[in-house]
């Protein structure tokens, strides 16, 4: 029997430890609630564990641009923030996407718009999955619903970032960041930077100089670059993943992500114990969206209810996934209010019986 030691930690610490296990050597960040445990933890552990660099930046704008710089150098680098701060990072994320630079950005989603509150929210779904900044680009988006997934997805995020030379967003929320759970740390195999040494800038000794840029002024150059990016995003679709729970004989499939998906799972379990035919699809990747999973279920004649802690964002992707075959109802739990599994009983039963 393998002796895997479990530790009892907050999601923010799990995210931090996952990044260290992934071989991250550069962290840049700016204080904002509810993610402060991450920079506080890494301010000492980045150097102690990975002999890496920690910089408290002057702003989220600067932090994201430091990430861009470290990524250009081929380093495993990350930044973390929460909603208002992630808005400020969109400039650099767009440049990174345009210049095809890998980096990991964690958003511990809080309430908005504006200053909102410091409680949990899924209001940044659109910003996360539609690029977020200017121009036609996408970032890969992973959505942890447990502290363990926070750890695991950081390791996955770094691998995907280098595999596709693209920014990867880990969209957590205040619930995942602030709750404490047992987490089993694990060490991945040696980090694979997917040939970063062939494109990064590290001094042109014995080779042609390299240039990392997002400006394409020559006739047709930008169109060509956008075609390249679009074909890359097409290739990314293979990474779509979802946690499919009790869907085989379900009449109604609830679609919910992140911590809300986790809470809805408890509701579904309870309804199952009462013999109700309800299942859950919990997308683990938000971009690419697990459309095939939903489409296959739609073809089996299932009905859908999307539940989110926002006013209706992912429901658009659910509807696009099943278009022409089915539709999705929506139940939104307002950001600013912490839901329990009981809160979702009535809406699920209502749509089950409709």
């Amino acid at each position, binding site marked *: 029997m393998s002796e895997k030691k479990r530790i009892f930690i907050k999601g923010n610490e799990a995210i931090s430890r996952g990044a260290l296990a992934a071989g991250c050597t550069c962290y840049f960040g700016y204080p904002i609630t509810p993610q402060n445990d991450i920079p506080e933890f890494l301010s000492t552990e980045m150097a102690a564990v990975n002999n890496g660099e920690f910089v408290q930046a002057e702003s989220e704008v600067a932090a994201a641009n430091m990430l861009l*710089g470290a990524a250009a150098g081929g380093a495993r680098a990350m930044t973390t923030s929460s909603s208002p701060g992630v808005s400020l990072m969109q400039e650099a994320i767009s440049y990174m996407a345009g210049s095809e630079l890998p980096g990991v950005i964690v958003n511990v989603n809080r309430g908005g718009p504006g200053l909102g509150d410091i409680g949990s929210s899924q209001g940044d779904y659109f910003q996360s999955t539609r690029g977020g900044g200017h121009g036609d680009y996408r970032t890969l988006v992973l959505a942890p619903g447990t502290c363990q997934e926070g750890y695991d997805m950081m390791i996955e995020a770094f691998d995907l970032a280098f595999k596709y030379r693209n920014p990867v967003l880990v969209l957590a929320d205040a619930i995942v960041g602030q709750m404490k759970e047992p987490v089993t740390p694990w060490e991945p195999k040696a980090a694979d930077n997917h040939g970063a040494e062939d494109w990064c800038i590290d001094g042109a000794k014995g080779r042609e100089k390299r240039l990392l840029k997002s400006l394409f002024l020559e006739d047709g150059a930008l169109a060509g670059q956008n075609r390249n990016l679009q074909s890359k995003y097409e290739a990314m679709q293979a990474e779509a993943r979802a946690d499919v729970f009790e869907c085989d004989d379900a009449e109604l499939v609830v679609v919910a992500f992140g911590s809300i998906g986790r809470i809805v799972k408890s509701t579904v379990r309870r309804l199952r114990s009462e013999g109700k035919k309800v299942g859950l699809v919990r997308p683990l990747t938000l971009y690419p969206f697990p459309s095939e999973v939903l489409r296959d279920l739609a073809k089996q004649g299932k009905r859908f209810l999307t539940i989110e802690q926002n006013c209706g964002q992912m429901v658009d992707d659910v509807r696009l996934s099943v278009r022409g075959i089915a539709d999705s109802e929506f139940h939104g739990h307002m950001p600013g209010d912490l839901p329990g599994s009981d809160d979702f009983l009535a809406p699920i039963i209502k749509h089950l019986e409709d």
Partner: protein
Amino acid sequence: MSEKLVFDAPEIMIDRPTHYCPGCHHGVAHRLVGEVLTEMGLVDDTLCVGSIGCSVFIYNYLDVDAVEAPHGRAPAVATGLKRAHKDKFVFTYQGDGDLASIGLAEIVHAANRGEKISVVFVNNTVYGMTGGQMAPTTLVGQKATTCPDGRCAEEHGQAIRMSEIIGGLGGTAYCERVSLDSVKNIRRAKKALRKAFEMQVNGTGFGFVEMLSACPTNWKMDPIAANTRIKEEMIPYFPLGVFKDVTKDGEE
């Protein structure tokens, strides 16, 4: 009859037609950077962080690895790059709109942290690439496309003096303002660059060189009149000199 080469460019300079206007000083500044990098043996270890403005194309003229930073963010990008590659030589090349306006926070904090990077700051008192708008460095009375009657101190504020700010920060190791208006001043500028670059190479710290430069096109002057303007209008307001040198006073 044979031709004799009497003056050549260092290998780091890419031989191609320039996109800069006649009389523009970016070409001189690029060349000085190229000469100093060559003389210091840094060419193969140099990582250039370009910025936004006319000089966004610096990577077309210098044969070194380069990355393009968003507007004003070059010092933050250079911070990340240098932290990832401590053994490489990292420099930014920025204009006055880029560095002194939209990128003010990034330059001040990179200097204050004492990042081991070098900054080449080309100050021509105007937004060049976008067509001559008022810059944070535009002198009071100077006409620009967004202040056609001349900059008014009451309405627009006064020109910001960056070397005085950077020289006053604890993390700065070397800070000097030079000018590219005359041969004598260009020679001085090269020495300043070398000094700032050496501060990075030997690990002393952050180096900053401000170069007063001409933009004849947007100043609506010929190149000679532009040089005269630097001497008669810019230098009196932006005094040349060393604003910080930690190797003086036995601080190193």
